[in-house]
């Protein structure tokens, strides 16, 4: 190692060294990061750092302001608070108790949370009138789970609850930066609307984001009817314009395309991250994982996924074959595939991957009607059109692919719609601009000067939950009610309508979009009446009141899914994209804070981004080879320039990125987001132009000589051949079912110095399995756990210090070459060891073993020696090094789970298998005079998991799901040679490679 270090330094041939090191390895060799791999300067720097570094921490105390600023909505730090005298409060009983409300027992209400306009069905847990946790609605099509109490969800849906309690939400209407009232707004609006009556609303413009809500759409139509010269514009920067344009190109009309991954045996993704991004990602991830589930003796077939992608994604991580190509090259590959299938698409360029493409085409042809091709939203319309043609040619339509009418109320091209609006505004023809949500001053490409256009509009009104870059420039900024505070409705990806019902009175003086539109229409109704009366008009009948109740209870209106629609190919596939040599910029929405709308959400800011494991920042992602070529390393700040714009971004090297691609995530660099999101990261919209929204060729990069420290939760180092993520191919596994067990060692039952440590076989014994074949590393478990267990956000400085608090983390490993490694994700909660090393070393007995095999933590008893964490081989324990919990922000207190202690400073904490849920289920069973059944308890991570990778239950019950899974040959424990006897075990990951490609490497 040291000799290589010297080589690396002397010659600067970092990459060569890495490759040399990789080539010398075989078998299960994994590496964690490039610094470790390469023995880079940073690595060497550490050697010399220990002593001189100390003084630099002097700024720690001085950086307090920054610290507070960062913690914001999710935490605040405090000094000694233990001595605070509790305020006097009176406890009085209800005079008239609300129906069904039993103190200590949560209620669940079905509702829907929309992202990008599309609804996700949810069940919201409410404690004494306070929503505290969002679960999926298992009977909703966007996140179905048969026979389960809760359905899965994604990170954004989970984190919505924190947005509700965000202390930076706008609390009263704001008029020209001064607090005002709704009464004044109504007065002012009436004057404006009266002016509009004179010219049929010629000066009125309404700007919304994507609208699927039938009620809102009807209101907008009413408005347009009343003011025929008014115009409705939509803008949301999510790349769905290309989807619409692709359908238009292929079929001559805009259609919605739905997929059934459950029926697809062969899947080709052309730059699509379908398991993590999109309105049906939770459903698709689940269906896809179901197609990969292997059960010994029951099911030994699995689907096969080919991914061609320009940015390593969650979907790429679960691929059997992953081909990294520049975004501009994907058009060529798509054409080559189409051509090989007999579609007249012009000859495509396979970029030297003929073997790959030929094998793929052969495989697709062999699975006609049970294959599927899906394209990433941001890919060009012609690639979408080609995929439609391929699916039609393969006979997939009607089987794995379904077309329906558009789900959006008005499927317009958002970019064109915005351009139209901006030119009208600049021309001075707009007298009143009403924006319902959105942030076009911030989230538009740099060549669209919305800010200046806005100045030319006499009256501007913005409805939004919090002040943003746009609303602060408007005459009126109106506080919008949160989805959990207001009545509404929305359609899911397939058109299914859900009624959105409020769980709590608006925390502040907020109104919904429906109510503001009603005001514009001179209609004084409130949200409930607006929504209910709309549906009464639509589906009124004798049974309406009953139906309404049923819809609210079920969380959806049955039979509202859109019917399949037959379409005809036009044979138009656009002109081939010429992929130029040189650097190309790939723009993507940030995987955790989206287009920037979640910037003030501490959970999402601190959530390690898939594959890079970065938090709190965006970066210029470069492949290691490209970084080497440019002479930059991690944390170096570079100027990325394209189409005449440039931004400075820190470099982060990402194996598996195609060469000559700079991936830049949008959504950072907010200036008016709130105390958490302000000034975090770099605004990459400044680099984006409307003619090259998602991939921009002919980019250039120059060094600035500066560095910027990025906070990454995975540290830099090798895996050293430890059998943590165990993998094999399906074929090998079928022939050698014990291959997974042979990758590690489990001591015998009697290998114990002490007797009687093992948990009794009577009663319950909780255990968990995590199926690595299903997990795609979507992070939903981490956020769900954070929400369920009141886990604080610690801020970037603390993450840099290695003090993040997540109880369940996703470990990410690579295997193979730097250009195209295999990516593995491994969720790691507490292993709940039967021989727990943490328990014996605690001097005060704060962590002890329960009769049911849980490794309990008594926070009150903990004195914080941290010995348990040192002795934990899995490093799943988390310590409150400072006072991380926010004791001061009143609104955040409302959102906490009352069944979980909020930990103070100096206390160790860790995953408890959601012990509060176990207790609640036990009590319910006992009160009901019944035994606890398998499935009565769902841990937060298990419930949320889109791929059903996590199974929890009683391992003393031989018929429980978890017991059955633990009998699988794929079942193994982590570092079992230490005789820890972990209760959490893993099911090894299997791949199903195409032998024709595998042979060619």
């Amino acid at each position, binding site marked *: 190692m*040291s000799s290589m*270090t010297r080589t690396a330094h002397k010659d600067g041939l970092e990459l060569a060294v890495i490759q040399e090191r990789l080539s010398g390895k075989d078998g299960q060799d994994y590496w*964690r990061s490039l610094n470790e791999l390469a023995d880079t300067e940073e*690595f060497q720097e*550490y*050697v010399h*750092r*220990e*002593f001189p*570094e*100390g*003084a630099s*921490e*002097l700024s*720690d105390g001085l950086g307090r302001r920054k610290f507070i600023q960062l913690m914001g909505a999710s935490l605040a730090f405090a*000094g*000694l608070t233990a001595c605070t005298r509790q305020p006097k409060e009176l406890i009085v009983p209800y005079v008239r108790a609300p129906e069904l409300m039993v103190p200590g027992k949560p209620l669940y209400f079905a509702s829907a949370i929309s992202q990008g306009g599309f609804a996700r069905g949810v069940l919201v847990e409410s404690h004494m009138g306070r929503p505290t946790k969002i679960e999926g609605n298992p009977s909703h099509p966007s996140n179905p789970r048969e026979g389960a109490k809760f359905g899965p969800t994604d990170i954004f849906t989970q984190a919505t609850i924190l947005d509700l309690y965000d202390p930076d939400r706008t609390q009263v209407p704001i008029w020209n930066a001064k607090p005002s009232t709704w009464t004044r707004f109504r007065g002012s609006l009436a004057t404006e609307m009266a002016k509009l009556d004179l010219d049929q609303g010629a000066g009125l413009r309404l700007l919304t984001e994507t609208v699927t809500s039938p009620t809102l759409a009807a209101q907008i139509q009413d408005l347009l009817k009343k003011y025929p010269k008014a115009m409705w514009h939509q803008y949301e920067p999510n790349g769905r314009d290309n989807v619409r344009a692709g359908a238009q190109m292929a079929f001559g009309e805009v259609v919605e395309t739905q997929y059934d991954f459950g029926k697809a045996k062969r899947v080709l993704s052309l730059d699509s991250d379908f398991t993590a991004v999109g309105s049906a990602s939770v459903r698709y991830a689940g269906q896809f994982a179901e197609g990969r589930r292997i059960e010994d003796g029951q099911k030994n077939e699995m689907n096969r996924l080919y991914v061609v992608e320009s940015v390593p994604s969650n979907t790429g991580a679960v691929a059997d074959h992953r081909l990294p190509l520049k975004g501009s090259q994907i058009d060529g590959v798509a054409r080559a595939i189409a051509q090989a299938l007999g579609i007249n698409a012009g000859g495509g360029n396979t970029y030297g991957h003929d073997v790959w493409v030929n094998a793929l085409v052969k495989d697709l042809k062999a699975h006609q009607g049970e294959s599927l091709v899906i394209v990433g939203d941001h890919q060009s319309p012609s690639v979408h059109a080609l995929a439609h043609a391929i699916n039609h040619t393969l006979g997939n339509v009607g089987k794995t692919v379904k077309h329906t009418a558009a789900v959006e109320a008005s499927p317009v091209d958002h970019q064109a719609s915005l351009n139209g609006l901006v030119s009208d505004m600049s021309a001075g023809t707009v007298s009143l601009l009403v924006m319902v949500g959105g942030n076009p001053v911030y989230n538009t490409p740099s060549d669209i000067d919305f800010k200046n256009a806005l100045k030319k509009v006499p009256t501007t009104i913005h409805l939004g939950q919090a002040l943003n870059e746009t609303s602060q420039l408007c005459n009126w900024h109106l506080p919008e009610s949160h989805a959990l505070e207001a009545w509404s409705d929305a359609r899911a990806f397939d058109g299914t309508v859900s009624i959105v019902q409020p769980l709590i009175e608006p925390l502040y003086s907020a109104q919904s979009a429906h109510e503001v539109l009603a005001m514009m229409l001179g209609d004084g109704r409130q949200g409930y009446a607006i929504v209910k009366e709309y549906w009464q008009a639509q589906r009124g009948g004798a049974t309406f009141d009953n139906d309404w109740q049923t819809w609210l209870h079920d969380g959806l209106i049955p039979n509202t899914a859109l019917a399949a629609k037959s379409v005809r190919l036009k044979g138009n596939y656009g002109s081939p994209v010429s992929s130029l040599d040189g650097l190309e910029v790939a723009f993507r929405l940030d995987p955790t804070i989206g287009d920037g709308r979640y910037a003030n959400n501490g959970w999402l800011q601190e959530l390690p981004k898939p594959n890079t494991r970065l938090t709190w920042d965006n970066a210029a992602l470069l492949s290691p080879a490209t970084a080497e070529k440019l002479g930059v390393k991690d944390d170096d700040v570079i100027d990325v320039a394209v189409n005449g714009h440039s931004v400075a971004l820190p470099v982060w090297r990402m194996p598996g990125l195609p060469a000559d691609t700079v991936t830049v995530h949008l959504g950072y660099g907010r200036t008016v987001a709130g105390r958490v999101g302000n000034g975090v990261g770099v605004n990459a919209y400044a680099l984006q132009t409307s003619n090259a929204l998602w991939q921009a060729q002919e980019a250039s990069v120059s060094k600035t000589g500066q560095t910027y420290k990025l906070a990454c939760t*995975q*540290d*830099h*180092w090798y*895996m050293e051949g*430890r059998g943590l993520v165990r993998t094999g191919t399906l074929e090998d596994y079928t022939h050698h079912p014990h291959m997974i067990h042979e990758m590690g060692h489990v001591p015998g039952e009697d290998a114990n110095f002490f007797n009687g440590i093992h948990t009794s076989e009577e009663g319950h014994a909780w255990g968990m399995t995590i199926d690595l074949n299903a997990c795609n590393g979507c992070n939903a478990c981490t956020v769900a756990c954070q929400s369920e267990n009141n886990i604080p956000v610690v801020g970037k400085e*603390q993450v840099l*210090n*290695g*003090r993040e608090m997540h109880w369940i*983390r996703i*470990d*990410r490993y690579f295997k193979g070459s730097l250009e195209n490694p295999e990516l593995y994700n*491994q969720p*790691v909660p507490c292993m709940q060891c039967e021989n727990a*090393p943490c328990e*014996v*070393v605690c*001097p*005060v*007995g704060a962590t002890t073993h329960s009769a049911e095999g849980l490794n309990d933590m008594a926070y009150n008893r*903990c*004195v*914080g020696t*941290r*010995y348990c*964490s*040192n*002795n934990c*081989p*899995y*490093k799943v*324990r988390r*310590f*409150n*090094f*400072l*006072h991380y919990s926010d004791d001061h922000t009143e609104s955040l207190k409302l959102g906490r789970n009352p069944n979980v202690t909020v930990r103070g*400073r*100096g*206390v160790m904490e860790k995953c408890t298998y959601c012990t509060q849920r176990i207790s609640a289920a036990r009590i319910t069973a006992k009160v009901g005079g019944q035994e606890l059944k398998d499935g009565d308890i769902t841990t937060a991570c298990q419930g949320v998991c889109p791929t059903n990778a996590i199974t929890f239950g009683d391992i003393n019950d031989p018929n429980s799901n978890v017991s059955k899974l633990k009998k699988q040959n794929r079942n193994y424990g*982590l*570092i079992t040679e230490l005789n820890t006897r972990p209760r959490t075990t893993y099911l090894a990951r299997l791949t199903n490679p195409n032998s024709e490609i595998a042979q060619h490497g």
Partner: protein
Amino acid sequence: MASPAPIQEDPTAPAPVLGPGQTYTTITQKISSIITSRTTVGWIVAVALALGLMQCFLLGVTWLLIKGVGIWGLNIPVGWGWAIINFVWWIGIGHAGTLISAILLLMRQDWRNSINRFAEAMTIFAVICAMQFPLFHTGRPWVAAYWLLPYPNSMGVWPQFRSPLIWDVFAVSTYFTVSLLFWYLGLIPDFATLRDKAKKKISRMIYGVLAVGWRGSAKHWHNYEMASLLLAGISTPLVLSVHSIVSFDFSVGLVPGWHATIFPPYFVAGAVFAGFAMVLTLGLPIRAIYGLHDFITDRHLNNMSKVMLATGLVVAYGYGMEQFFAWYSASPYEGYMMQNRMHGPYQFEYWSLILCNVIVPQFLWIKSVRLNPYALFVVSMFINVGMWLERFMIVVTSLHRDYMPSSWDMYHSTLGDWLLYAGTIGIFLLGMFLFIRVMPVINMVEIRLLVPRKGHGKKPDHDASTEVSAE
């Protein structure tokens, strides 16, 4: 500073333990003059500096109590850092005092007499410094202060006796108590001397109280001898047990680099090694400043060097065994741990440690080095640093990369770490400076015992004290 080696009649005989021409009177005069003479400017400056350093401790602890242990460089996986390193380092330093006063007494090594007093004082102050860390390193010191003690309570909650940290509490508190008693016991006859020599009433009263009515009667001497012997008997196992138990903090854990059976003897040897280095670090300047060359002679330097060399070799053997078992165990975790120490990000610390603790002590094979106070001082400073690095290596480099590569991280010390470390050095130095000024730095009684032997070749009787009283 160095006096030329005295000419000896028999060249093979060991150097004398007492310089030539010393009588009871001169011994008492010389040693007590350090206390009775006027306060020197140098001493005041030294105390001021030590007090200043001690303010770092107050600052560091205040900041710590306000904010929490997050002010240090700790993280997950490195849950222990400088606090534990310093704790073990200070405890180790204390060991020389106990070894000298107990084991060497039992072995009738009379050369110990002139160094045992300040070695014992050093033990007391080092243990006081050490005891700051286990408490303040906890997340909640306000409860850790008593929850680790087995006090009866209405909740029926007891400490968890399987934890080595509990063993630590008992080991260290016992050690401190016994060391303090032993030290005080030895001081009683000297306090009596000082009481008798005191010119001011206030000093007479203070030393009188401290002397607890010592009159030098035969019965007193008998009890004194018996108590010394008993305490020596009690202390002797402590020398071995305390650092063994401290080593259990690590060896009971399963962290690669901690979980090793060599730890108890290796820690004890390391402690004695470190302790003697510190005795020399302090003793050599005291000898030079106060002109105590006749009491701390070349014989002492020679003997102490030999002890350091011997224990240093045991420590080196420990390092060797760690290497051996990392290979022999065939455990990939152990193997990686050792590779990581030697070639990982903390390799500088590891190789510095080898230089300080293995290579530099080899100079002690050379007699001229053993007898040269300057050279010895340099060697002892190397060992002081080396033993700190050893604990750094054990605590930090083992933890920062253990089983799960996904959790590996680096430890960077912070200002908070430095404040507390510098602060305890301040406490230690302040204690030592005050001790030198108000208590006899060398045991007068025991040194006087050496005189008749020199002159008459026979053991003295206890009439010596009558003479003391007569003065």
